[in-house]
């Protein structure tokens, strides 16, 4: 593929095929929020530290604040909007609700997606493995205890 002013991307977003034309320098986060209307993915630190912008690319977490939209071309992307099925919260979301694993909610989309990825790659993580995997998702409200309880309830 050669350089183009704008590029047409096609990828699978939350289970459905999408097409969107972008600038090569557009970040995935901005395309999701501003072009595709998916505001659940948040920008916070903007430097790959906090995890508020987490989306799953082919099942694994990436920082959409520091990923080119072009990288999604041909891939499978899951955002928080794609987690619930048929209007029903999925089991990770339910666990966060049941264990009060959120307060302001700003980190929650990233926490839920990181947890989803963890359980995909390791369905029975022990406490140390949970903490290790979620270490890069920062929460300023809960103190993490409730979040860890929510995740542990899924193991």
């Amino acid at each position, binding site marked *: 593929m050669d*350089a183009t002013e704008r590029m047409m991307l096609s990828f699978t977003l939350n289970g459905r095929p999408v097409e969107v034309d972008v600038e090569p320098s557009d970040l995935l986060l*901005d395309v999701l929020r501003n072009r595709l209307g998916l505001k659940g993915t948040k920008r916070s630190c903007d430097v*790959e530290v906090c995890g508020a912008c987490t989306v799953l690319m082919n099942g694994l977490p990436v920082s959409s604040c*520091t990923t080119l939209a072009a990288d999604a071309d041909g891939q499978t992307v899951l955002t928080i909007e794609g987690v619930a099925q048929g209007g029903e919260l999925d089991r990770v979301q339910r666990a966060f609700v049941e264990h009060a694993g959120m307060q302001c909610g700003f980190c929650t989309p990233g926490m839920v997606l990181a947890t989803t990825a963890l359980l995909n790659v390791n369905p029975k993580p022990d406490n140390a493995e949970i903490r290790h*995997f979620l270490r890069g998702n920062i929460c300023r409200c809960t103190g993490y205890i409730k979040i860890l309880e929510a995740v542990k309830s899924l193991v």
Partner: protein
Amino acid sequence: MLPHRFQYHRPDNLEQVFELLDRYGDDVAPYAGGTELLLALKARVLRYEHLVDLKRVPGLKGVCESDGQIVIGALSSHFSLATDPIVKRLVPAYAALSDNIANIRVRVSGTIGGNLCFAEPHADPPAMLAALGASLTLRGRDGQRRVAMADFIEGEFTTVRGPAEVLTEVRIPAPAASARYAYCSFGHLERPAVGIAAGYCPERGTPHYRIWAGAIAGRPAQLRSVEDALEGVPPDKLGDVLAEAASAAAQELPAHDDLQGSADYKRHLAAVLTRRAVEQAAGLQPRRKAA
């Protein structure tokens, strides 16, 4: 911040990569995981008119064994190396190191090639790969060359890689069955302030040690004085010899004050971590998971 605009190229073979790097010279950068490059573009400390995405060039990812070497494609992510069966079996300490880099998202996107080529001093893999005696394959239009890991990084953000060369693979000689490696690092920020890689390599009953310090200086440094002091010393006799040699060597390291701590603090860390890494490699204490 948003990056300034650039043109994006997604070649599907190395010939096209070389052609683009050649054509655009100073205006082009290879693009791998982007975990360093995009941050620098967003902060506008770097500027390129063209990015050449290496991720879809076939043959640059994955791990295989060949002629007693572990051959790692430069586009392999830290996450894939942390979970790779060959890496876990033959160089478990390098798998563990990969598993402790940054956070899960940086490990998933960030590649070993990008880590080495960026040569940010506060990095984990270089010291370990140097201790393991790894070599790097650089390919360009006119062919390929091998460079020892020990010679690849010249200083902060500088390597011997030519602007039109691509790092394609990292080769680690498979360690002898009796050899053991360990890596100990510490830092209060995202990246390591100091990291020490140690190898315990007994040969026909005689213990040899390999010890490299990373992150503390602009490039990884071999702690030869410690290696020499420990030559032939069995694990149960390391005690004072190791503590003294580690402290003396740490004092000589070219550290400087920065956000990660003062030079004195980092030399102190280097002495402590050297002791721990050597003891772990020699089997003296259970491997501890980094915090």
